[in-house]
């Protein structure tokens, strides 16, 4: 294989986006380009790409193997992936999968005979309020689109007809059956947004052309950035953000201004990286901001970059957010045209900011900040040792001090700089100031995004804003208050204040503010299994407890679900999870077991009931016998073209017979 000149040129353009000598950062965008060109990334193409990027074939292969969205084998013309994670499961993802299987006549992981459709499942696509949903990738163009609210068999049929008609990919905006009565493939617009009377972060979402720079500027956009960059010193910006008390919205809640002040003052090269790898199941807030108000984020980036004195920023967006990714690039180009990004921005001599949107390729772990940096550097998304922390010399992107902030955190910055720290502190609580975009999903009547001040009671969110439970007859059973990795709350905890301290006091964490409501119909065994399955699938594989522990837990849970459980399995699971927690390399280990642990603790009766019903005699499983181990040592390796003939016999004549008999 040899790349065409056009492809080679495109790859070189991707490579040019990254700093000199860091061209391997372009490995994912280049692989996407190769996949679009050839339909998949063959080993030969990987090796040829490695040559261009200065990577060995094994290094490229390792990257390809890590990211689920890069295929080493061709898929169908349309790759249909159904989200089956907990929020979707609660709203009928299983039925959606069955409808697809029925209509397409294929099972999970299969491709139709005509090569048109491949069907797979996928873990949380950030579309929890509009479940059930699928993502479809068009092989010929590499374009990817979300098709949502596929509640019935008719909806699925309508979707497939649309795809077959060829009208499905002229836009990448999300599609719903209801919003497209004539099957023209039109976009459905943003999903439900609500909350306070006057909203800020989500104020513009839903307005016509809210993603365009003209409307953003008409609403006063970029004025704050212009003023701050002209009038305020970086230290003053940091002070104002510190004073606002803004805390990180990615999950850990670390004060943003304090983080910024950690940068070593003397280092000449530093980076800003925006974490847009929103992958925590139950979380879909950053998606809406990027799709419908990207300039708000870019203005925040300009302000943050000014504060930390960098001229280079990256947005690392998850690969599935193709629409948001496209819109962000569009917005970057528009901002560059206006002189807000690029060189001498806002007309200030010597003030530069280059912003690159970097698309991930399907790996939850890349939301962990050090894993994100490793991924951005062109590697597998493995977390790295801390210290040094990203803000330290040696710890960040390319070893340089780096600030990593969540999209929502950065989006708060323009508002804080425009209206002041005191205004901001007028919202929320003393320790958790400001407003929050809560992602409400699961069994509620109106799932969606609700922008509310920190401290709003859980009950108010669920009943006042969310309209209560999905069905009148099914009461709330459990609530996951901060994305799937957090411990479950129960229906008697509706008074819990939704701020960092309040949720912690209730025995869980606010995390990414993804609130998943489960009603009485949900099986807590299935919830636990799907939670663990998600983490098993997304574990990066670096450390022992997470890699082996999640696999083991999943096997036990599947067995329990299938009727082979024993009561001692519950203790075993508790024991295992205790040793994954706080022993793993990164916080992923904790996240992988907290949900299951709390489910087991709070709904133990359900597990016991299932086991006693399905396996009353507590019979353990049969363990299969191991195969013959000792293979032949004398065979030609086939790894090289021989220039010398083989001589002599195998040193293990007797094994040869064994192996032959075995074959």
């Amino acid at each position, binding site marked *: 294989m040899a790349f065409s000149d056009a492809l080679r040129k495109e790859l070189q353009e991707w490579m040019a986006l990254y700093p000199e000598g860091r061209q391997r950062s372009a490995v994912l965008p280049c692989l996407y380009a190769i996949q679009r060109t050839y339909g998949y990334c063959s080993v030969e193409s990987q090796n040829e790409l490695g040559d261009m990027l200065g990577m060995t074939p094994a290094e490229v292969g390792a990257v390809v193997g890590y990211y689920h969205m890069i295929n080493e084998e061709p898929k169908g013309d349309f790759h249909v992936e159904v989200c089956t994670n907990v929020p979707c499961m609660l709203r009928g993802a299983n039925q959606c999968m069955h409808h697809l299987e029925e209509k397409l006549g294929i099972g999970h992981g299969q491709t139709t005979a005509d090569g048109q459709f491949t069907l797979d499942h996928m873990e949380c696509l950030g579309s929890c309020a509009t479940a059930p949903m699928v993502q479809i990738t068009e092989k010929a163009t590499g374009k990817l689109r979300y098709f949502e609210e596929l509640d019935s068999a008719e909806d699925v049929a309508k979707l497939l007809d649309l795809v077959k008609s060829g009208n499905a990919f002229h836009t990448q905006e999300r599609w719903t059956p209801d919003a497209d009565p004539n099957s023209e493939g039109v976009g459905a617009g943003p999903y439900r947004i609500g909350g306070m009377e006057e909203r800020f972060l989500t104020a513009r979402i839903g307005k016509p052309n809210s993603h365009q720079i003209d409307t953003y500027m008409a609403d006063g956009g970029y004025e704050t950035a212009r003023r701050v960059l002209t009038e305020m010193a970086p230290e003053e910006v940091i002070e104002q953000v510190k004073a606002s008390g803004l805390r990180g919205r990615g999950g850990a809640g670390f004060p943003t201004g304090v983080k910024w002040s950690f940068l070593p003052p003397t280092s000449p090269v530093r980076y800003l990286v925006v974490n847009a790898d929103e992958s925590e199941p139950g979380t879909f807030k950053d998606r809406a901001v990027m799709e419908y108000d990207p300039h708000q984020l870019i203005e925040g980036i300009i302000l943050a970059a000014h504060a930390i004195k960098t001229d280079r920023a990256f947005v690392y967006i998850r690969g599935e957010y193709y629409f948001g990714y496209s819109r962000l690039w569009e917005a970057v180009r528009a901002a560059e045209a206006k002189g807000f990004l690029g060189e001498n921005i806002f007309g200030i001599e010597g003030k530069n900011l280059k912003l690159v949107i970097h698309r991930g390729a399907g790996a939850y772990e890349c939301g962990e900040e050090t894993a994100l940096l490793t991924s951005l550097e062109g590697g597998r998304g493995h977390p790295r040792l801390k210290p040094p922390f990203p803000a330290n010399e040696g710890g960040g992107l390319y070893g340089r001090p780096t600030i990593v902030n969540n999209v929502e955190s950065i989006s708060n910055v323009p508002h804080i700089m425009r209206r002041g720290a005191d205004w901001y502190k007028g919202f929320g609580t003393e320790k958790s100031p400001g407003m929050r975009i809560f992602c409400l999903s699961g069994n509620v009547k109106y799932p969606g995004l609700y922008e509310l001040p920190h401290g709003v009671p859980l009950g108010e969110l669920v009943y006042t804003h969310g309209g209560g439970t999905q069905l009148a007859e099914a009461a709330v059973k459990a609530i996951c208050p901060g994305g799937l990795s957090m411990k479950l709350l129960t229906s008697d905890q509706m008074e819990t204040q939704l701020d960092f301290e309040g949720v912690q006091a209730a025995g869980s964490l606010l995390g990414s503010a993804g609130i998943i409501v489960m009603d009485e119909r949900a099986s807590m065994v299935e919830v636990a299994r799907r939670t663990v399955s998600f983490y098993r699938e997304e*574990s990066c594989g670096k450390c022992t407890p997470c890699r082996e522990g999640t696999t083991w837990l999943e096997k036990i849970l599947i067995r329990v679900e299938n009727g082979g459980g024993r009561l001692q399995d519950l203790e075993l699971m508790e024991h295992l999870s205790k040793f994954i927690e706080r022993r793993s390399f990164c916080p992923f280990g904790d996240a992988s077991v907290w949900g299951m642990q709390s489910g087991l603790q709070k709904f133990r009766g359900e597990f016991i009931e299932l086991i006693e019903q399905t396996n009353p005699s507590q019979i353990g499983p049969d363990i299969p016998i191991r195969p013959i181990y000792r293979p032949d040592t004398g065979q030609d390796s086939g790894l090289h073209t021989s220039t010398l003939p083989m001589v002599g016999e195998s*040193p293990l004549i007797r094994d040869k017979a064994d192996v032959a008999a075995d074959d």
Partner: protein
Amino acid sequence: MTDLVTLKIDGHEVSVPKGTLVLDAAAKLGIEIPIFCSHPKLDPVACCRMCLVEMSGPRGASLQPACAVPVAEGMEVNTQNENVRSTQEMMLGFILVNHPLDCPICDKGGECPLQDQTMRFGPGISQLVEPKRHKNKEHLISDTIVLDQERCVVCWRCIRYLQEWEDKPQLALFERGGETLIDIQHGQPVDAKTGGNIIDICPVGALTNRVARFNFRPWQIERTPSIDPHYSTGDNIRIDTRTHQIRRIVGRENMQVNDQWIADKTRFAYEWVNSDQRLQHPLVRKDGELVPASWSYALQYVVDRLKEISRKNGADAIGGIGSTKLSNESNYLFQRLMRQFIGTNNVDHRNGGDVAALATGLPALADIMKPQYGPNPKVDTIFLVGFDPSEELPILDIHLKRAVLRGGAKLIIAHPRQIELTRYKGPHLAYKPGSEVTMLNVLTKLAMSAGEKNDAELSKLLTGATQQALKDVCDVAVDEAKRAAELLAQSENALIIYGPMAADGPNGPQVINALTNLAMITGHYERLAYIGLDANSQGCRDMGVLPTKLPGHAELDDAEARARLEQLWGCTLPTEPGKTYKQMLDAAGGAIKALYVMGADPASERPDWAANLDKLDLLIVQDLFLTETAQLADVVLPALSWAESNGTFTNCERRVQRAPKALTNPHTKAAADWMILDHLASRLGANWPYADEKGVLHEITEAVPIYRGLTWEALGDQGLQWDAAQVRPTAEYRQAVQPEATASAEYPFALVTGTVSYDGGNMFALTKQMHNIAYGPIVGISPADADRLSVADATPVTVSSPYGALQVQVKISEQVKPGTVWIPESLPQSPVGALLNGSSAEYVKIEA
């Protein structure tokens, strides 16, 4: 690093240097913390979580990996409490959950850290009732290394070795989560020449040795510390034997030499020792056929014929060829026999008297290894002339890579090929073979101006060394040479190493003169070194297997040395300088009537030599195999290998090291070199006083002043270096004259030779697992020339010079410079010597 930090581990106070890892601080107290991924020679990755211990910190006590966290003042560490012990137990539980537990048929069983730690720290019982995960159990990641992905615990040691030492990330993690596995990219096997070291450092039985697999059980083997027989770095090895056979070779730590690493050829290519092609008994030619004979008959025949020829044609009609592959003891006795009984100085070895070598060797390998352990490398710049460590000395190669990558050393390369080490972007002077002198003279001139040192005497010697000559004669870019000159002038401690290729033939003395001038003016004369490539290249010279040198590098007319040796040996030494290796072989059948060849195979080097050898009145060959030379012999004496007898070898930095007898072969009549020579001596009328090889070494310590005190006992198992200052020539500027180049329209290509690790020699070729990676009969051609000649890979071509022709196959290589072709020495069925006449610089043509 003098700052000490004091902390408490399990209640015991300990003070260690700042930066020490908790793991090492605990070890200092004798507290063992179990590990898998951590390795003292690799950077921490902290992925196995086996070493989690409780450490106090600003946010209270927490479990932290001891392998990655440095000590802190006042830190309290607990390695024994319930929390830590239950964690250790469970981590092993996690590791074992998908491990196949096939210990009974696992090579690692019995010496496996996973087994040992399971016994000491693991759970007593498995809680697993699920089916285990299945992966590939016999996965070849190279021709010599087998990966069992089920046994693998994903500790990354192998990945990190290839990355951090070889700088060749050819292994990586693929897939993720529970499916994570170590693998190569499909179709791209590990080709690092020291890749086999990952077998030694694998903490489980995941990586096994394809040559040794299933051939040993660790508790049944005998272990003998020894020395690698292939390379002049003298890498320390351990030979594992059972029932008179070598079962395995592994690396042995010597921090002065090889760290703990050995090359793949060292590790895997040992099948020749136990080969059934080995000579079992003496052979004597009768009626044109070599037929088995008794030792007494064969030895008496040798003695009688030698006496007869000596009587008839004089002592100088007899010559002896020793070997750089054999021990000091074998070579010492060999030259003693030739000088004492035959009475001739016609004694030499391949790359001996024909190569302008320096006796001093490298200052110390540790000077290059230094950077990995401390911030102050002793050597800051390394200049390689006509030497390709990646092919010729793989362990030196990884030392150099570390010096560059971790020590910040600068690398300058003068080599006609774009050798692997040029990837570090140091100056590369891709000179035309044969133009070394001009290149070095110009470099000297440039270094003089770069270092602002004006030496009138030297300037006078360099009048012809112009930048124009650099372009015309050497085809080297002036800018590259300027970069190199600047680095050498700026360097405080530069090491200049030249190989046999640069100093061969009539060119040699001129090259050494030019190098001396360069080294002197840049202040690096003490670190100018010739490097021989074979295991005993240095020792063979030290022992006086040279036509113009007595043992200890003494001149033939050195009265003190003569007196010492004559008294010790009880004889009068010959005074006339002898013939060199090439001279003897060229004269064989002419002035030379008889040759005694020990451990060499000149017939395979050049067809005309083979013809000459056939014309001899007497050819005695002492060897392990019936080589091409042995097939021409009148008497063949079967010898024992380095593993079957005691011996010492002197490496490229003058370290004398022991290679003790590791096995006996009760079925063979072959005898050790010293014993054969000793018996010949007694039949020649003397009674040598040796009881064994150690006795020979004892005599060497008396006969060779630089070896004084280096007895078998004193050497120990890490060896001792002798002092180079005793034999270093006085520094003086010398005229270096460029010999004429011989390019012509008919023969347009400059021939590049040199050696490769995976050649056609018996010591490599008899290991069948390595056949696929061996070089065949090839000629390396640049892509541009291949295009011009319309030849592709594997096209059969004829390469010819005025002296001969070779049938070889084309191998297109980016490493080869247009206008040159590359044919390494010792390739099977393609003796490059057929094209040469006295020097390794020659011009050739290629015809399809």
